[in-house]
């Protein structure tokens, strides 16, 4: 049974005000188009969870979608500060819950594995543990020494961008894997956005490449260039110029609002957004092919 629908339909159906949303992807495959669609549809009071909020959550916070942030690093990767998020936190207008990267990912792993918590070895750093009551301890029943724990995270919705998926939601990913798999299995509902919708036979020709199985997926959306200004390995490059520009745009709210008006509210969907970027940007982000060596599964 096909799960294909438009991204607008998927957001409409699965994301509700007050939900905890996880837009997955570590630098790679960040589903910006989904974030923009959430902004366009005016969702409010979301809890936004991601290791690195990146520009996608900076934009969603700026647009007033978020009540709370769950994160482990609030920077503009490779550039500097995440200005909107930082300003809202400093002003006391945004709640937050903070972990280390490993704490954050361990929360997802526990959620994905159906465990109530994950243990982590002690790292000697005292202050995050002191300030986050969700970071606790249990005694290792073998040595008697204590290990740290973090509780399972179960987002209401996980949005996962991938290179290719079939209509059932079987999704294949290569390049940086980040926390895509863990976020998908941890979430109650999973929305897949894909650069390409391919025939089932393509997926079945390489089952080890399937990171997310259709059986946990609710919706599959065909969204080419979904990740811009992040990137999709093999499809287009990271738009480092935009990451640098955002540092300037986000210096004041007027320019942020103008940007949102023009690039989010001013376009209908990801296709229009990409079109609007224009041929020069398309050319700048284009990438020449470099193929993986063949792999023979055998015709058993």
């Amino acid at each position: 049974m096909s799960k294909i629908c438009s991204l607008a339909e998927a957001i409409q159906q699965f994301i509700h005000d007050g939900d905890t949303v996880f837009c997955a992807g570590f630098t790679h495959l960040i589903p910006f188009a989904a974030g923009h669609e959430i902004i366009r549809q005016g969702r409010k009071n979301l809890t936004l969870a991601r290791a690195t909020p990146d520009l996608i959550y900076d934009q969603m916070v700026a647009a007033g979608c978020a009540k709370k942030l769950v994160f482990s690093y609030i920077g503009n990767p490779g550039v500097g500060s995440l200005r909107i998020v930082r300003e809202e936190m400093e002003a006391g207008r945004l709640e937050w819950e903070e972990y280390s990267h490993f704490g954050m990912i361990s929360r997802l792993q526990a959620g994905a594995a159906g465990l109530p918590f994950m243990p982590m070895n002690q790292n000697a750093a005292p202050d995050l543990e002191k300030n986050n009551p969700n970071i606790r301890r249990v005694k290792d029943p073998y040595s008697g020494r204590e290990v740290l724990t973090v509780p399972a995270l179960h987002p209401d919705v996980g949005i996962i961008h991938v290179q290719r998926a079939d209509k059932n939601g079987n999704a294949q990913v290569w390049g940086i894997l980040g926390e895509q798999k863990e976020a998908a299995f941890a979430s109650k509902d999973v929305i897949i956005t894909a650069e390409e919708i391919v025939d089932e036979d393509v997926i079945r020709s390489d089952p080890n490449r399937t990171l997310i199985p259709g059986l946990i997926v609710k919706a599959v959306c065909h969204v080419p260039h979904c990740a811009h200004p992040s990137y999709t390995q093999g499809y287009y490059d990271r738009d480092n110029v935009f990451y640098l520009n955002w540092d300037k745009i986000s210096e004041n709210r007027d320019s942020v609002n103008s940007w949102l008006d023009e690039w989010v509210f001013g376009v209908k969907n990801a296709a229009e957004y990409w079109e609007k970027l224009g041929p020069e940007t398309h050319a700048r982000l284009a990438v020449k092919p470099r193929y993986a060596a063949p792999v023979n599964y055998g015709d058993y």
Partner: protein
Amino acid sequence: MSELTYTASELMCINAARLLRDGDVVFVGVGLPNLACNLARRTHAPSLQMIYEAGVIGARPNRLPLSIGDPTLVSGASSVCSMFDIFSLYLQRGNVDVGFLGGAQIDRFGNINATVIGDYHKPKVRLPGSGGSQEIAGWANRCYIMTPHQKRRFPEKCDFITSAGFLNGRAEREATGARGGGPLVIVTNLGILEPDENGELILTALHPGCTYDQVKENTGWAIRAAETVRTTEPVTDVELKILREELDPDGAYLKGS
């Protein structure tokens, strides 16, 4: 040689590169640590193995990555794994020899603050937070820090300990059971600080032309000096040439300061 001119970043980067040993597995961040590792690989440590928190092992980037998740790190790498795996199977398991750390504050016992200036719940300045550094500081066998030598960056005590140095002394860190050795060397633009037997940072080397007085002026506590304070080997034109011509030709990280 002594007439070569270089920036503070170049000086720190070159001195950090010299600390790396051939065969080391290094957990690399972007920016200066990335440049230091690549400089070491091109000089005395050709078998250095670089792994990135994004899950990339053995990267062979064709260009200077802006972010730690740049696609150039993936194409041609020897392995890519999930973040859960890189932090658990590599870092927590003890497969990482060296980690690089940085932060807004480094205190007398090598503790690092990358989280907040002021009160945690009512931040005066909200910094990026731990990212991967809490576990790198806890679990890498050796940690190195590069930072400009300024009083505000070297307070006696951090406002918030994001990543552990030696807490209030080496024994306190050891009591936590964290496997890693903690900060081994802090490279600044003035010289080199190392922990003493109690984990307190002391001056062990000065770069050519720098003085203990400069260090004292720019440190937030009464920093002691080792009995013998070395002078670091002068920067060589070979090192500068590799940095400037091969590794960062646009000066993205090395220009300025």
